[in-house]
């Protein structure tokens, strides 16, 4: 449904030019959910917005790559055609529903604009459709909610309205950028459930961007793990969670406190910090923090520092590591 190839995006910052996304490729299939996970600053949100060419300029710049939506490359489209893509073919839900809804218009007005623009609906038609859609996203008393202004709604409610808006146009691809981060766990569960439910009904392809491994595990079919502007590992959800090959993915999964892990025991951590993306990086981006590398011989360790690993196919997925991890690893090994 959506094929992204070698996407690269950079930003001008006071500290210099920053390559936020550097050669990212992935596919999304109809009716499936791709989770893009990673820690803050790894480039996952930039990737998502670049798919819609929503890069603020300045300071942002799309450096290269292709985004194929069917037979169209979104990145080479004339900018006049972009509104036809946005909302219609690809919709997006943002993390903060408050800033995504216009505070001076009622919900109905905002939904009406979408419907009028996309389908040329009259007010009556739009109203009926809006009520129906709000009901679909699980809003009780949709008639009265339509007359509400965004600030009169709770966070969960606003996110539901956002989803309703995103789905009004029956998009082929839905990008959800941290849709539940601002919400409580119980509400999060409801929203995630809603997205899944709707996806099953409409067959939309979903890209779910999140930093929460739990949410990914709960929702996604495929997962792509990003680190420092790159995808370091990708594959089916079970494969990645059960037997991650990349030391980073391993470390990430291990550092989450889990039930029954032993209370107050020391948690495995990934030491160090994400490298600065303003300076060119030689070799593997994770090399500086890699626990695996510390277990390697001098020659192999030097290779990590000098040679940039490409994504290689592995059983059930792809991994960008010269020395992928296999089997089980004890937490202490990762920490040392």
């Amino acid at each position, binding site marked *: 449904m959506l094929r992204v190839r070698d996407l690269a995006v950079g930003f001008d910052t006071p500290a210099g030019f920053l390559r936020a996304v550097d050669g990212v490729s992935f596919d999304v299939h109809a009716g499936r959910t791709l989770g893009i996970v990673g*820690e*803050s600053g790894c480039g996952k949100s930039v990737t998502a917005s670049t798919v819609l060419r929503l890069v603020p300029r300045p300071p942002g710049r799309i450096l290269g790559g292709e985004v194929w939506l069917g037979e169209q490359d979104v990145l080479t489209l004339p900018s006049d055609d972009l509104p036809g893509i946005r909302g219609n073919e690809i919709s997006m839900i943002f993390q903060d529903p408050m800033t995504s809804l216009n505070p001076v218009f009622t919900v109905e007005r905002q939904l009406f604009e979408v419907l009028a623009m996309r389908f040329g609906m009259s007010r009556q038609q739009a109203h009926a459709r809006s009520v129906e859609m709000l009901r679909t996203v699980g809003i009780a008393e949709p008639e009265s909610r339509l007359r509400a202004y965004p600030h009169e709604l*709770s*966070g*969960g*409610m606003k996110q539901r309205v956002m989803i309703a808006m995103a789905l009004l146009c029956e998009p082929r691809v839905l990008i959800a950028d941290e849709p539940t981060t601002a919400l*409580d*766990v*119980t*509400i*999060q*569960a*409801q929203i*995630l*459930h809603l997205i899944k439910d709707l996806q099953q009904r409409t067959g939309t392809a979903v890209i779910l961007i999140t*930093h*929460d*491994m*739990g*949410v*990914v*595990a*709960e929702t*996604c079919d495929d997962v792509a793990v990003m680190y420092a502007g790159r995808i370091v590992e990708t594959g089916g*959800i*079970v494969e990645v*969670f*059960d037997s991650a090959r990349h030391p980073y993915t391993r*470390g*990430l*999964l291990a*550092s*989450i*406190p*889990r*039930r029954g*892990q032993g*209370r*107050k*025991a*020391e*948690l*495995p*951590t*990934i*030491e160090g*910090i*994400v490298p600065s993306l303003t300076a060119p990086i030689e070799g593997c981006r994770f090399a500086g923090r890699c626990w695996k590398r510390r277990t390697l011989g001098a020659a192999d360790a030097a290779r990590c520092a000098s040679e940039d690993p490409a994504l290689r196919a592995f059983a059930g997925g792809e991994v960008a590591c010269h020395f992928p991890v296999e089997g089980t690893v004890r937490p202490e090994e990762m920490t040392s």
Partner: protein
Amino acid sequence: MSDGNGAVPILQVENLKKYYPVRGGVMGRKIGDVRAVDGVSFSVREGETMGLVGESGCGKSTLARALLRLEDPTDGTVLFEGNDIATASKQDLFQLRRDLQIIFQDPYSSLNPRMTVGEIVREPLLVHGVGSKEEQVRKVRDLLETVGLSGDVIERYPHEFSGGQRQRVGIARALALEPKLVVADEPVSALDVSVQSQVLNLMMRLQKERGLTYIFVSHDLSVVEHVSDTLAIMYLGRIVEHGPVDAIYGRPAHPYTRALLEAVPVPDPKQRRVSVPLEGEAPSPVSPPAGCPFHPRCPFAIEACKAAVPALEPVGAKVVDGQAEHFAACIRQGEI
């Protein structure tokens, strides 16, 4: 409630209330109350960690701040080593503050961007006039090294640090006056998973080394379970369940606790939930429902739940020294 296993209760909270007036009109007349914290009682034993869990708006942050009298409580007592913080005089409070410190959620807004790290950590020492200038500087270096930052960073400004490092600075500041009790208000919520584990490890190490008592406020049940000894679950300004972590996680007595635990997404794709654990949203604290505040969402609610606010009652038979340890505020706790 006295000590169960030889540990002394360092903090005893009785019927603590914090109401915010709702004002209106030109001259700001009071027209109502927001009952952010509505009659909370619990105790914490020295050297232990009490987890405080709840969803946004449940009053847990307000409670944390009221404990330290960053907000003046409306009613109730907060006995710290026998001194009532809630009514302490200015001078007494000033002295008490040395023993009570707080760590904040947002490592960005909790550090003054215009002060160097050294100045930030030194401020409490300056305010309390601890030691000479040289001693203070030495102490600041020691503290920074204790939290895992090199002493050379004192000249640098917060923006030069990552979120995890900033949180370490915040911890160093909290430790500067060598407190006995530290309230950690969502200390890792804003951090990435890999960093989160680093900070949690640090906090646990400090507790061991310094015998600190923590009140650990969080909405992340996995984290709380990992670090806490006892747990209090809040809903709409009240504690609905309180007791040892194992007991609560093992056999939650309150339907809300149960739903909350179920809502947490587990980072294991093989354990996916099928249904949504809890419908609806928490009502506004301005107009809480009559009776049990949870009854509108509670799957087990009966007519009697609407009648009166249920009190915390001991759960099961486990009693230590004639005192129950596990409490829940549900009239049907035995039945479900």
